[in-house]
């Protein structure tokens, strides 16, 4: 379904974010992308729909090479790729319905989107999706009136309104509490299963990834260092991904903090006497 071959990205600042990533996602598979911050997870999924332009390599969806497309063709291909964002990225001042309908923007001419006169089929799809994510009664609310979990559901409905063939999910639970996080992850996996949708999910929460993903890819400094089912994600594999020295540094930081606190406590006691 989706094939990445030798994808690399170097930002203009000279920092290499991705180097030579090769990856295939078959139909219906839900893939979790884990790794420390700055490992290139976000860059990788943005290279697929070219919100970030890859510096080298090819990205093929079905039989179309997305990297070589012109502007108009790229827009047509982006319709096939739904994206769910970290912190929702809804247009806050528009209504929920407008946000969901904005998933149809690539399909309708400008005047329809400008006048908010969408084809009947699109409106019905939007209502059906809102019903599916459980927000039927909030269609006319403004997006900034919703809670975090509700907003992410709208984000999911917007992505599905595109009738996508691939779902890109960027840290869907980054600003949600643990319970809502689990609900959102369950919703995403259920919907993917219903539609046989492949998905790439960036996720920083390793236990959540292990619980919901079929396959896990570990990214470190822009390279794939782990690729396998969640059951193979052992302590050693995690160290490989997140780096041993990081753990140590963190522990060292803790030690320093503890020392400083102890020192402060001693001073306070000396003052009290």
């Amino acid at each position, binding site marked *: 379904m989706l094939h990445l071959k030798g994808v690399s990205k170097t930002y203009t600042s000279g920092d290499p974010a991705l180097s030579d990533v090769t990856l295939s996602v078959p139909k219906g598979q839900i893939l979790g992308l884990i790794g420390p911050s700055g490992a290139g997870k976000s860059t990788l999924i943005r290279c697929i729909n070219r919100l970030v332009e890859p510096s080298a390599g090819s990205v093929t969806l079905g039989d179309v090479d997305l990297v070589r497309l012109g502007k108009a063709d790229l*827009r047509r291909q982006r319709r096939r790729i739904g*994206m769910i964002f970290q912190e929702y990225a809804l*247009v806050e*001042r528009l209504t929920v319905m*407008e946000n969901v309908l904005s998933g149809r*923007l*690539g399909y309708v001419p400008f005047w329809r*989107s*400008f006048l908010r006169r969408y084809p009947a089929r699109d409106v019905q799809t939007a209502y059906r999706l809102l019903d599916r994510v459980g927000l039927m009664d909030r269609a006319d609310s403004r997006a900034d009136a919703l809670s975090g979990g509700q907003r992410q559901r709208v984000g999911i409905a*917007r992505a599905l309104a595109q009738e996508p063939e691939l779902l890109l999910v960027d840290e869907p639970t980054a600003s949600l509490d643990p319970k809502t996080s689990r609900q959102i992850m369950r919703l995403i996996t259920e919907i993917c299963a219903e539609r046989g949708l492949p998905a790439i999910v960036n996720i920083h929460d390793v236990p959540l990834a292990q619980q919901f993903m079929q396959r896990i890819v570990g990214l470190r400094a822009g390279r794939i260092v782990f690729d396998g089912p969640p059951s193979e994600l052992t302590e050693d594999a995690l160290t490989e991904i997140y780096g041993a020295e990081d753990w140590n540094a963190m522990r060292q930081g803790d030690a320093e903090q503890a020392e400083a606190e102890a020192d402060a406590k001693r001073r306070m006691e000396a003052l009290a006497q």
Partner: protein
Amino acid sequence: MTAAPYSEIWHRRTPRARLVRWMGWLCLVALFVWCWQVMTETTIWAFVTDAPRQAADIGGRMWPLEWGYVPELLLPLWDTINIATLGTLGGVAMAFPIAFLAARNTTPSAMVLRPVALFIIVASRSINALIWALLLVAIIGPGLLAGIVAIALRSIGFVGKLLYEAIEETDARQIEAVAATGASGPQVLNYGILPQIMPAFWGISVFRWDINIRESTILGLVGAGGIGLKLNASINTLAWDEVAVILLLILGTVVASEWVSARLRRAII
């Protein structure tokens, strides 16, 4: 307690920094004195010392206020409000596209159109409405139209600058999300950017309207219509009692417009 070898002198800044600061202040004072001398070269001090007497004289002639003059002022006042409102509408309409050309994230060409748009904004901001009116009265003749166009031209810079700053401060993630659905350029503008800047847009427009009411009261001094015409006439005939009435009326209008604009802005946001 043992005597610790601590310094008894503390300075906030290093000697060098202090020297630089003192030199800076000294330069400012010297510059001020020099400017003062250049400026007052031609001043006739006899007039300055005479000023309190003049002030008392003018003040005395303002009293009693010529209230009978008010009905004659209402039509010019209506004109003044129209100049401000229509001028604001015109200015906002012109500033809107210019702001999009000037904002770094929406400009179609950073090399050509953006500098042009920025120049229009600076030019409009640098030149006061009264100067625009002076020019326009000379070009299209005295009357309301000159005033309206003057206010509109002056508003472009103010509205354009604040609006393009608002466009540059939009949340890039919301725009990215709309672009990711496969939306076209105009659609991204309509769904991603416009909803984010609309509150700023209305707020800026109403704010400018408030300022324009203030500015349009004096445009008549150069012949561009409104209550300023009456003010000019009364000043030329030294009818200070009428001048005082006009000023009170202007003051009332300004306070009222400020109240209206504050209410409107609160309703929008």
